[in-house]
């Protein structure tokens, strides 16, 4: 769990120039990623995690769940992070756990962003009563503290599976990005290129799908990254306090077992520190990418080189 950073910074969402075809936008994003250091680091880290999640068996040779080894072994070449109290190889647990974490991150990220785009753009375009109602809904959800709410929901559901976790987080955390998307959709609504489309006689839906949404790509990508970040943090926090499914292999659940066995105090600190470090690194990757996108979208935020002025 951590604080919102990305997106909040640029209060006025930068409305970029109208996008060309989809290829154009991807090419621009690709170039931007390569030239911005933060984006490069973030992307590389993310790709590493994705690879680990896709091919865990290649990297870790032990089963994550079998208590096959002697407990409390230290770091060695056979056990890169040692074994835990139950004799499970910690490194395998983390490697296999990556999959669960990334699935949560991407599914929740996509679903939440999807809902946010839907509600945000609809509110901006339908206007009037619809806008008012959706706004109130969004604002209320924005203001209610999400983590305590999630705790309560998960508690009543007795923890439950990863699916419950995904559903709960998706249904509660779309409001922040919905607000941002609505704000940008509103500024775009009156831009000239849209007026031109209207004059051409294009239908509202066409305008929204083909002209507006592609122009908002950079903000939508940033929203996805924000939501994915929160998904990871919320989900692992819930798993950590025991509200996920303790039997799935995931970073949060590993932490849960570590805390249950007072790993810090009983001299097995790696059990607690290592999964947390993984969460931190993945979180940092998302955050860096998000920050980089902020800079790409709003050139005023880019790093400034102090210029040398010539003296006459």
């Amino acid at each position, binding site marked *: 769990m951590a604080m919102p950073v990305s997106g909040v910074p640029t209060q006025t969402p930068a409305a970029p120039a109208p996008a060309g075809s989809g290829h154009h936008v991807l090419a621009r994003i690709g170039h931007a990623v390569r030239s911005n250091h933060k984006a490069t680091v973030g992307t590389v880290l993310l790709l590493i995690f994705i690879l680990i999640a896709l091919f865990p068996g290649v990297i870790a040779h032990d089963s994550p769940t079998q208590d096959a080894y002697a407990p409390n072994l230290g770091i060695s070449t056979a056990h890169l992070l040692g074994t835990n109290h139950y004799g499970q190889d910690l490194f395998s647990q983390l490697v296999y756990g990556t999959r669960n974490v990334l699935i949560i991150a991407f599914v929740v990220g996509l679903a939440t962003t999807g809902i946010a785009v839907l509600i945000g753009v609809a509110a901006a375009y339908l206007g009037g009563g619809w806008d008012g109602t959706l706004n109130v809904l969004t604002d209320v959800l924005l203001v209610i503290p999400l983590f305590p709410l999630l705790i309560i929901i998960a508690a009543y559901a007795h923890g439950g599976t990863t699916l419950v976790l995904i559903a709960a987080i998706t249904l509660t955390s779309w409001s922040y990005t919905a607000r941002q998307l609505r704000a940008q959709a509103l500024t775009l609504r009156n831009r000239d290129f849209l007026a031109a489309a209207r004059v051409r006689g294009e239908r509202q839906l066409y305008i929204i799908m083909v002209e507006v949404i592609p122009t908002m790509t950079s903000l939508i990508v940033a929203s996805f990254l924000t939501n994915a970040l929160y998904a990871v943090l919320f989900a692992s926090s819930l798993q950590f306090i025991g509200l996920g499914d303790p039997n799935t292999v995931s970073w949060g659940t590993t932490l849960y077992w570590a805390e249950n066995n007072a790993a810090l105090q009983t001299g097995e600190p790696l059990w607690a520190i290592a999964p947390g470090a993984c969460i931190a690194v993945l979180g940092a990757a998302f955050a860096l990418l998000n920050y980089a996108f902020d800079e790409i979208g709003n050139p005023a935020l880019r790093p*400034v*080189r102090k*210029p040398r*002025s*010539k*003296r*006459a």
Partner: protein
Amino acid sequence: MPELPLLEVTDLSVDYVLDQGSVRAVDDVSFTVDRGEFLGIVGESGCGKSTLLFAVAQLLSPPAVVAGGSVLFQGTNLVGLTDDQLSAVRWRDMSVVMQSAMNALNPVTSIGAQFKDAMRAHGKYSAGEITARSAEVLRMVGIDPVHLRSYPHQLSGGMRQRSMIAMALLFTPDLVIMDEPTSALDVVAQRSLMVQIKELQQTFGFAVIFVTHDMSLISHFSDRLMVMYAGQVDELGVTRQIFDKPLHPYTQGLLEAFPSIHGPRVPLKGIPGNPPSLASPPSGCRFHPRCPSAFDRCPAVTPDLYAVGGTLVRCLLHENGSPSR
């Protein structure tokens, strides 16, 4: 013995330093302003006139930097001075009026508070003195001093502009630099504001540098006129002379775009094409792609400023000080 000019700008250049390289927005501009003189600077959007103005007032912000030249104000070169050193002349001797008062005034403090700020920055004045002076300058521009308590958003557009001018006159400086102060107003308000500015100028004797894109507006008020194009000075001389006999094809084009109400009816003539990109300006004379009088040497040779009578003009047609082919 001729008096030293109040302001002497020599070979001033301004670059925008970007990742991909520098773009020269103002290229080797030189001009002088004498005491009490009204100099108008005209040009299309993007020709560098506002950048020039900020460069003179040392108000550039990154990525814009002064890349060369000097700005001698009352004998001191302002280029390279720190903000602390500049505050000695700022507002007392040289003040600035910006285009949009809505953006140039602090939205969260009252007008009076902003006047007070300016005064306190340049001397020890009692509260009474400050209020008295603030009320005085507001009356000069025709605003009731009760508005010292108002916030910018509570005033009308015209009143805001005039209060900005009042603020610029707090210390009756020697030079007031104005960046299109009338552009945000309607035509009637524009005229009345211009008349007021001219009256104030004649009453208090300060010099004015007035940047605008509206040629017809400036022609009635300025003593001398400077025409800018693509970051360079294209013509500089006495306003009346330039209007009677414009030398540069660009100036001619600008004047032809404002036909007179009184003369014979003539078809409207614009200047074809668009202003050039300053990142890659045309070779030789920068105006040649749009010039109706361009000839074979124009793309090849970069013209200097040539003197024709009292006017300076950057055109190969006047290379020898007189029209030539």
